[in-house]
């Protein structure tokens, strides 16, 4: 299987998981169990202490010291893993919200933005790259220069400046659209350069000349005949762009220019962790950071061909 196909599959798989996963969340991500702030992760069980089998359950938490947030497992009370019970498989945050449910809900939002932005970036790249590669001459030089200029800029500062030039307070739907467009507008140049290269070569191939000779318009030659040859390359580029955009969302939300706190995205979640000391006291709050790592790993390993995995030599 080609790298391009693997990349496409890995992306599709990730999109599927992210769409379906929040449905499996044990709690409403916004629900606050105010008696259980910073509860540690609880282990799910199938058997009780006498080895009787049950539906999946966890032992209830008893609050030992609400100020020091010390909890103890109450082995006499079994709680089903359901929405109305204070069961936290990945612990709870400072408001007593379930970290697992929030991480799953956040995945949908964070990866959703990343996928949308990738779509925009790839479309821009295909359009501009194809124009440059097909037209050549002045247009080519202009587009290539511009792409190089954008490529040199430190992306996150540009994203911040662009986002900062819009109203500070936006609804979360507006934030979604804004981030997707801003990231898309920054992410296209590297891909556009690649597309330009491919089109530049393909344009001289016989099939393209033939299409032109039987009277196809340049536009039709580009869209129908030349662009399909870049699809594999675009799929591979998506593997790089999606994780970069996930990180960009997290970074912008972290500094207050992304999603706003009550909403669960990976960025707002790490923003709510606060300091390094807080992360050390309640390391389970870093679940979204693990989520980001998993995203990168899934995409990279998924897209790698067998020979790459085995080693080059």
């Amino acid at each position, binding site marked *: 299987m080609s790298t391009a196909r693997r990349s496409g599959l890995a992306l599709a798989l990730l999109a599927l998981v992210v769409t379906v996963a929040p449905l499996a969340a044990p709690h409403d991500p916004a629900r606050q169990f105010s008696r259980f702030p910073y509860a540690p992760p609880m282990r799910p069980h199938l058997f009780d202490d006498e080895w009787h089998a049950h539906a999946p359950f966890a032992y209830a938490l008893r609050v030992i010291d609400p100020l020091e947030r010390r909890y103890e497992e109450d082995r006499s009370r079994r709680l089903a893993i359901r929405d109305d019970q204070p069961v936290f498989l990945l612990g709870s945050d400072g408001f007593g919200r379930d970290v697992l449910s929030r991480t799953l809900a956040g995945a949908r939002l964070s990866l959703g933005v990343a996928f949308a932005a990738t779509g925009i970036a790839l479309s821009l790249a295909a359009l501009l790259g194809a124009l440059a590669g097909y037209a050549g001459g002045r247009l080519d030089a202009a587009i290539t220069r511009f792409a190089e*200029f954008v*490529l*040199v*800029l*430190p*992306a*996150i*500062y540009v994203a*911040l*400046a*662009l986002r*900062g*030039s*819009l*109203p*500070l307070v936006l609804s979360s739907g507006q934030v979604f659209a804004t981030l997707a467009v801003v990231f898309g507008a920054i992410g296209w140049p590297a891909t556009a350069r690649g597309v330009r290269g491919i089109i530049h070569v393909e344009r001289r191939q016989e099939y393209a000349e033939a299409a032109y000779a039987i009277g196809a318009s340049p536009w039709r030659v580009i869209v129908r005949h030349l662009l399909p040859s870049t699809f594999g390359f675009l799929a591979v580029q998506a593997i790089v762009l999606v*994780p970069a955009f996930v*990180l960009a969302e*997290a*970074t912008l939300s*972290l*500094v*207050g*220019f992304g999603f706003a706190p009550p909403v669960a995205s990976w960025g707002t979640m*790490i923003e709510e*962790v606060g*300091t*390094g*000391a807080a*992360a*050390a006291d309640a*390391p389970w709050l*870093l679940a979204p*950071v693990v989520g*980001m*790592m998993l995203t*990168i*790993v899934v995409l*990279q390993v998924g897209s790698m061909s067998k020979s790459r995995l085995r*080693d*080059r*030599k």
Partner: protein
Amino acid sequence: MPALSSSFIARRILAAAALVFVVSSAALALADLAPGDYVTATIGGDPAVAAAERQRLHLDRPFAERYRHWIGRALTMDLGESFQYRRPVLGLVRERAGNTAMLALAALILATLLGIPAGIVSGSGGGIAARVIRITSLVLLAMPPLVTSFVLLTIAARTRWLPIAGMGGITHLVVPALSLALPLAAMLERLQSEAISDALERTHILAAAARGIPRRRLVWHHAWRVSLGPLLGVYGVVIGSLFSGSFVVEVIASWPGLASLMRDALMTRDAPLVAGCSAAGAVFLAAGVLVADLAHAALDPRVGAPGA
């Protein structure tokens, strides 16, 4: 080392200056033309007070006039005064930019010292060491600075080995610099590894091997020099990513660099400060690109030749 043509150097410097100019102008325009201004973002309320404040800050004048004014002064290295801090932008930016530069430079040095030798080892032979390095790199490549800084901070806070926030002695630098350096080191290692294994297959290296030059010298002396070329080109790109990466590390580790200044400036629509921060960023970037270009040209005579 071939001499660089002076016109090449001049053109590169001109391009760098253009970059700084375009970026800071664009930043000023963006911050200025954005909906709302410094007054609505900070004071708001009473229209009379707001109008007086706008007049004091010249926010009541048209943008074109303020831009002309700003450009005129910027050419003499006067970047105006920050609305919120009521201090000259240049001083503020210089302080913070110095901190960012310190962090970025420390990370660059660390990454080079870790990544390049590791890449030479893993690219030139098999064995346990090469395998360990390769796996470590692959893991680190999946850990961008945002992830490494959280991981390192958690470790530092749990073990209490290192301070976890702010700036102070050299120990305060360890966590943020390492967070930034590790992913970069992994990238350099991968590239160096490829470059060295490619270099080892070149015919003149094979010839040297045939003459009986020991493998160690072959790798660390002959092949290493050949592999330097492709790697230097990467450093130009690295500066940009280092800068982007340092943003998030500065925020997480509370390092008082350009990141927090830029964020404050944008949050309060402090246009002169936004432009100042962007100009500082652009200067870094342009300097990095310039150095990488010149180094590349110095190594590869075709790049810097007249007419190139």
